[in-house]
């Protein structure tokens, strides 16, 4: 889903940069004074894990690349604000170390993967997990991850399609190309997110308590583990 340099037109670059910087600024403001220092090494650990996961990708004709995001797991484990910051870190590192995702496309990549990819799954999870019960929580995690993946890919397709003629395909090709591939990958993303969230809670329940903003999720998550 990483958009490299040379794929986007100047207006799309400017719009996505403004949007991404605004949301990230809100994220930093929300977490300011609300993050335990202890969370930083853990956050870096999870970020490093999903950094490696994203390296396995393949090119899509008519779009960019397809891969697992890891963003839903970051959003659910760290919360939407820290999750989006973590994802932005992955994107900055990949941009400068591998040029996987470009400097000019950083705004678009942050919007697609660090904002839509993190916040949609978190919102769906919150909404569905309110009903409680093992099934609802599992469905919330799975469906949230799936939807976050697909919507992020569709947003990438829109940005690419609207960048024609800099990008070689229009919206009618780029959006379906990205959406179809990621609706398949979204299923895997849902499964991986379920495994990662549940494994993490099982092996380190303290992980969730480190982020005070996530304390509302602990009863439902704990309930799942106790059932």
């Amino acid at each position: 889903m990483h958009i490299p340099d040379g794929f986007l037109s100047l207006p799309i670059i400017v719009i996505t940069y403004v949007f991404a910087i605004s949301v990230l600024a809100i994220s930093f403001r929300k977490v300011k004074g609300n993050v335990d220092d202890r969370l930083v090494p853990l956050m870096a650990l999870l970020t490093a894990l999903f950094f490696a996961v994203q390296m396995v990708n393949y090119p899509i004709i008519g779009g960019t690349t397809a891969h697992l995001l890891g963003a839903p797991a970051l959003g659910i484990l760290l919360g939407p604000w820290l999750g989006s910051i973590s994802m932005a870190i992955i994107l900055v590192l990949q941009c400068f170390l591998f040029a996987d995702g470009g400097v000019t496309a950083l705004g678009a990549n942050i919007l697609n993967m660090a904002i839509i990819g993190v916040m949609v799954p978190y919102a769906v999870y919150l909404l569905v997990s309110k009903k409680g019960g093992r099934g609802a929580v599992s469905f919330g995690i799975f469906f949230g991850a799936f939807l976050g993946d697909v919507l992020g890919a569709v947003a990438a397709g829109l940005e690419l399609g609207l960048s024609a003629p800099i990008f070689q395909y229009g919206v009618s090709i780029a959006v379906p190309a990205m959406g179809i591939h990621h609706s398949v990958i979204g299923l895997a993303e849902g499964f991986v997110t379920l495994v990662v969230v549940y494994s993490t809670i099982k092996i380190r329940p303290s992980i969730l308590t480190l982020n005070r903003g996530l304390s509302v999720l602990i009863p439902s998550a704990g309930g799942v583990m106790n059932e």
Partner: protein
Amino acid sequence: MKYAPISVRGLLSGLEYLLYVEESNSHPGILHRIDPLTRNISLILIIFASLLTHSILALSLMLLLVGALVLISGVNIRNYLLKTSLIPLFSLIIVIPIPLITPGTFLWSASLGSLLLTVSYEGVLRVAEFVLRVWLCVGVAVLITMVGGINGLLSFLGAIRLPGLFTQTLALTYRYVFLSIDESMRMLLARDARTFKKRNRLSLEDLRGISGVITALLVRVHERSDRVYLAMRARGFSISSRASPCRWRPNFSDIAFLALLSSLLLLILTIRV
């Protein structure tokens, strides 16, 4: 049992090799002597300039300019070419159908059963322009990190006033990627030591065991992160502390570099062929 033509250890080694940027600093070149902030801004200017032209000649000249900068920077050319080759290749795959669907001057045709494939000159030009631009941008981004290293990147991010939480976590993440790779290697070595049949390639059985390995890896690295946190606290770590930012103190040679590069880019952008 069927084997995939790759090994887990090979993949991890490859990732570690691609990630490692520090060694490039052992042979500092002319580019290293330029103020980091001026250097990075100048290089990013090339990326933005490439978006303002559709001329293949102009893009080729910019690519030559980047090539010259690579030569005077003293970075390892083999490493540089390796790091910059994958993304343009992906870009080429993405636009492969363009010469076939773009109308224009006939260049070449081939029949595939009942299907006639016609390649147009305009389509080939569009592909060439697209791949050249991507290659140019990738080349510049990789050059930024190979010249400045991870510390240069952190200083640059600090200089553009990114919060301490971002730069501190980014620095730790970079180290943890290597830590995770080393830990995975140790786990693979321990597994091989306990296994009678030595496997060098990835098998279906290996794939089934990967989820268990990842969980164990998560536990090990998390335990180590706890120890790292305590060590950091003992040394006075706080997330509010910023990475030492590079303040912009350009001297004559920095200004001359920026002016020369900007002039060359402006000159190249006037080309309409």
